[in-house]
């Protein structure tokens, strides 16, 4: 039994379809991120899960029971708002206690749960303050605590770190993950930040234009993107058009590309004759030889600290490479090779 199961869900606003045929299963205790560019429907999906929007079609199950028609106040979910949405006239303690009071939890248990959460989040010293007397990070922790204290079956986050500065973001991110693990919470986490998604999640759902592009573990998403959108959105891979020429030996596919004839190693067959292929800038071997070797002048070098970004134009194709060697400069002609197992065949063109 899944903690959450979404079946053929659609969500339309008038004629506009914000979500098109979503299917997703989430197990108990899993941390799943919804990743995608702004406007791809992440918040809409989260609102459907929390009950603020009723799907136009399809069903949502939680713990095996349908919740599609349940309003938010009757669902066993807790939402962490991007804006925190703390009640400004209530103290931190009253904010934490609010949901428990609504659910008519006995006083002794309320006190105990609020104590536990405020200890977990180090809010003990802030309990009698008003939200506007707290820093951004503290407010964010109160928002988190207010959801945690409910001990919900599913906890939902809508870009919870977007209002924090970079340093704080890292520590809160680790903290959210720690608390999620400690309490074995099922979590759905919305973000448009790929680094956040890759570092936190058990699985990542990549959304684009209201459609699911890929659902997989972070490593799989990164190393084996299913579509050119995923390849481009996560870690900006080099993406090229390719024509499949044939299978030279089992699992070795010959491709015609703007860089010349290349070989891709793959167990699965290509999805058509004209397809897209991608490869990561850091997978190419600078000064490589043998199979898949390309020679090209360097157009631009950009020093990044641990490595340099090299920009090349080969046969009208914009290519990015990563080099750990820092002697290269504009105008140098270099050879690089793309290992066949890292040349990934994507969808048909």
């Amino acid at each position, binding site marked *: 039994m899944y903690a959450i199961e979404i079946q053929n869900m659609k969500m339309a606003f008038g004629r506009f379809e914000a979500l098109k045929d979503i299917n997703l299963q989430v197990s108990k205790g899993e941390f799943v991120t919804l990743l995608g560019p702004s406007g791809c429907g992440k918040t809409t999906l989260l609102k459907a899960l929390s009950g603020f929007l009723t799907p136009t079609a399809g069903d949502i199950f939680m713990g095996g029971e349908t919740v599609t028609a349940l309003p938010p106040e009757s669902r066993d979910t*807790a*939402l962490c708002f991007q*804006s925190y949405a703390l009640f400004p*006239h209530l103290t931190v303690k009253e904010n934490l206690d609010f949901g428990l009071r609504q659910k008519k939890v006995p006083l002794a248990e309320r006190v105990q749960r609020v104590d536990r959460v405020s200890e977990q989040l180090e809010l003990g010293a802030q309990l009698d303050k008003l939200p506007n007397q707290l820093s951004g990070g503290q407010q964010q922790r109160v928002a988190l605590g*207010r959801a945690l204290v409910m001990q919900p079956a599913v906890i939902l986050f809508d870009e919870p770190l977007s209002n924090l500065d970079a340093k704080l973001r890292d520590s809160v991110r680790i903290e959210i993950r720690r608390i999620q693990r400690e309490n074995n919470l099922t979590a759905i986490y919305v973000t448009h930040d790929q680094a956040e998604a890759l570092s936190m999640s058990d699985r990542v759902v990549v959304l684009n234009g209201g459609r699911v592009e890929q659902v997989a573990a972070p490593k799989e998403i990164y190393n084996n993107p299913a579509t050119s959108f995923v390849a481009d959105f996560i870690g900006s891979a080099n993406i090229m058009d390719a024509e499949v020429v044939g299978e030279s030996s089992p699992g070795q596919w010959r491709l015609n590309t703007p860089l010349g004839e290349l070989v891709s190693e793959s167990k699965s067959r290509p999805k058509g004759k004209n397809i897209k292929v991608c490869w990561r800038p850091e997978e190419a071997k600078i000064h490589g030889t043998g199979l898949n070797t390309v020679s090209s002048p360097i157009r631009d070098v950009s020093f990044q600290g641990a490595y340099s970004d090299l920009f090349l134009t080969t046969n009208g194709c914009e290519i990015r490479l990563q080099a750990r060697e820092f002697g290269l400069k504009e105008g140098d002609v270099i050879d690089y090779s793309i290992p066949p197992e890292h040349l990934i065949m994507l969808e048909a063109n």
Partner: protein
Amino acid sequence: MSQAKLNKILLYSLVAVCALWLIIPFTMAILWSLVDPTKPWTADKLLPPVMSFYRWQYLWENSSLQQAMINSYTLAPTAAVLALVLATPTAFAFGRLSFPGKSVAQTLALLPLIVPGFVTAVFFTAFLFRLGFAHWRFGGIVLAHCVLFMPFAVRIMTVSFETVRQDHIDAARDLGASTCQRWKVAYLPALKPGVFASLLIVFIYSIEEFAVAFILGSPDFVTIPTLLFSQMGQDFVRPNAAVLSLILVVPNVFLMLGLEKLMRSANPALASGKG
């Protein structure tokens, strides 16, 4: 001259002008109300030659002032509360919902404010008389004040409803709050200042309103303004008028100061803009 210095001078002159604007009329009213009938205050004297509370005592004992005060101070709060109650649903619709023709409706709701008071009074009272309010003058005036001044309440409450944050409502709901609890935690704190402001505005306008109160109320139902104007009408006695105008205006000043305090404490979110 430096910018800062100029600003300072402008600020001080503004404060001075405001102070004079308040202080001179008040001082004059107070002085005139204290003129003793035995010796008139002539133009060649800076202060009244003899000062006493004769006028205050005289009016208190020998005019319908007591009845007028009772009438005015029951009328105004009733009109204020009624206007607020009637304005709230409209303001909710204007502030929280979207519907076709909303901006037209909002303009229409403000229309009563631009029609001159006396014009409205003359025709509205005719309408009220037809409805039978000639026999219940208090009710007639309350209703008229309510209708006349409700646009203020609608406007203020609309703005208040607009400041209620949707994410607060959603958060309350998400945490399991009933409709009633949602109102308490998300709406009321944001509405409080608007509630006080509407009550006060309608109260003050109602206390000071003359035309409707005069036409509907005369001859036997007096309010402070109708008493004041009648004192002016027959044989104008300036000291008496001074007493009445002070009685009319002093409570308003205190109400205004009280409101300022209440508004400040009402909503910590508005005080800091965060939260």
